[in-house]
């Protein structure tokens, strides 16, 4: 199967033509960054419990992909799910309240960080069992065609998730169903180089991860996941094909997480400080700002305004969450069967 690496998805000309869109995308990436920083802070303050996995460093992936979102599409993610939820338009206050375990959280405080959920905005959940949600996405894609819509399912997952059985079962079924146009699904590998502390070449026999999709006859392409223009261009092309054909597609986005695996991953014995610093040179937000400034699509003032706005959104969300009431004890027994 042909695979090529998309390095810069848009010519200068094309960039200018969609200036407003790029600004929106930049704004969203900045909001994610500030929001995630806030969650880490609140976790350390003991306001957020459980496990916390942030998206810092990977923003360009979900943002570039979900810029193609259309009402009716459904989106799945693992436990690293804050960015997707924000991008789909969930109320940041409701998300933060959920992380605080409050009654007006988007799931009444019953899910928390690993299980964000906002069906009204197309987000069908964050899941805590690695790889378990891939089958769900394949089934939802089937349902969308069964109901004769043009919607698609988008499924985010990590490099580590590619070694578990349900990955295999989901993808083979997706490939099979796709043959008759019954699986409009976009699978997105967020390849950040590590499954917790295990580097890709220590967990996968074939380290060319996208190529594994060849085993299911599913077209696949790699992209620089720190380059939001490239991610977005590839996503637009892939999504158009998926909507048209009802067949699945896979994008391997090569990215990097700047924080630890989860909030408890302090020591990070599996990678060097140097490596992290080097990777931070390719901060997707910084790269985008540089490009957009060079192209005179945004000004420094505009970026500053975005930063301030994002800061405010995150801050407001924390205040909202802090002031929100705990769930009603009766919630314990609802939503079971």
């Amino acid at each position, binding site marked *: 199967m042909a695979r090529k690496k998309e390095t810069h998805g848009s010519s200068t000309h094309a960039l200018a033509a969609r200036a407003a869109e790029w600004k929106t995308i930049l704004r969203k990436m900045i909001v994610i960054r500030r929001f995630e920083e806030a969650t880490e802070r609140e976790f350390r303050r003991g306001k957020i419990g459980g496990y916390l996995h942030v998206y810092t460093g990977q923003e360009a992936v979900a943002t570039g992909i979900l810029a193609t979102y259309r009402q009716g599409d*459904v989106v799945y993610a693992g436990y690293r799910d804050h960015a997707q939820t924000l991008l789909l338009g969930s109320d940041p206050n409701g998300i933060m309240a959920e992380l605080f375990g409050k009654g007006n*959280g*988007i*799931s*009444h*405080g*019953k*899910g*928390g960080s690993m*299980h964000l*959920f*906002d*069906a*009204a905005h197309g987000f*069908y*959940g964050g*899941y805590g*069992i690695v790889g*378990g*949600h*891939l*089958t*769900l*996405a*394949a*089934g*939802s*894609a*089937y*349902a*969308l065609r*069964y*109901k004769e819509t043009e919607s698609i*399912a988008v499924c985010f997952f990590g490099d580590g998730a590619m070694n578990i*059985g*349900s990955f295999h*079962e*989901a993808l*083979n*079924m997706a490939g*099979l169903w796709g043959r*008759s146009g*019954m699986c409009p699904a976009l699978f997105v590998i967020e390849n950040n180089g590590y499954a917790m502390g295990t580097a890709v070449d220590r967990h996968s026999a074939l380290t060319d991860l996208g190529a594994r999709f060849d085993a299911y006859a599913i077209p696949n392409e790699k992209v620089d996941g720190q380059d939001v223009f490239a991610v977005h261009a590839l996503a637009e092309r892939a999504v158009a094909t998926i909507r048209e054909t009802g067949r699945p597609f896979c994008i391997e986005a090569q990215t990097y997480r700047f924080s630890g695996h989860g909030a408890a991953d302090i020591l990070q014995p599996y990678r060097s400080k140097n490596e992290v610093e080097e990777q931070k040179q390719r901060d997707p937000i910084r790269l985008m700002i540089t490009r957009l400034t060079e192209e005179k699509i945004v000004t420094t003032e505009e970026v500053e305004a975005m930063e301030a706005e994002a800061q405010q959104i995150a801050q407001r969300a924390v205040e909202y969450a802090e002031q929100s009431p705990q769930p009603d004890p009766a*919630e314990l027994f*609802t*939503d*079971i*069967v």
Partner: protein
Amino acid sequence: MSELTYRDAIHRALVEEMDRDPNVLIMGEDIGVYEGTFRITAGLLKKYGANRVIDTPIAEAGMVGTAIGMAMLGLRPIVEMMTFNFALVAADQILNHAAKIRYFSGGQVDMPMVIRGPQGAGVQLSAQHSQSFEAFYGHFPGLIVATPATPADAKGMLKSAIRGKDPVIFLENAALYGMKGEVPDDPDAVEPFGVSRVVREGAHVTIVSYSRMLVLSLAAAAKLAEEGIEAEVIDLRTIRPLDLDPVYQSVRKTHRAVVVQEQWKPFGAAGEIAASITETVFDELDAPVERVTGEDVPMPYARNLELLAVPHEEHVIAAVKRALYRD
């Protein structure tokens, strides 16, 4: 009413519900072209087409997971497990996903799906193919676990399962597929979950059972009657939710109870039922609740050993006599 086999009753329920609601579809291994190893789905592929009757690869986790993804979007998928022994490879999808998503989403989605197929000991199917899973699934909140014993219940409860909003583990029994019984023709005759039923009245002892063990219990009760012992026999019908009120009521009358299950005793269904009876009507009991269960061994292949491993009528009779201190 028509006289139908348990197999045909299930088949009818599928056909009627698929006719009624285009959102109902069924998937499983060899259910289409092959028409099902137990022929439950015979004719369905031809009638409803390949988009509604989906032959899947051998991938039980994939089947259940995709069904969850369908159910959350409003379809009503039915997953056929060729036998429930194979559902172990889908345990995570059933127990950690289907049973919990509604809860952790704060009630944002329903989970209208059914996982159905046979379980239980057959004839010389050995250790990996002879198990019963009602206690296994019954432990997990978020599931409904149905164990119909009659063709009428098989039909009526399967309809409830398909029409409902919950993930239903629908445990059939291959040894019952050929059993006949009167079944309502009314396509809207559904049987609710969580309603146990007294199927034989009696004053001396209460026998509690479900699925194929009910047949055994009724046969034992008939024999006991010849000796003047009148057993009240109760069919639990669903394991989760578990309706023990009729059992408590019965024990208040008989003061003795025997619980019958096919599977291993430790941490099996009968333990829960016995414990609940004791908890609730302790002062009414004239004897400890007796349990009749299979032997605590993996199922052997040899027929003579297999026969020693599963409960028989005589075991129920003996347990009743123990409960009556007549042994």
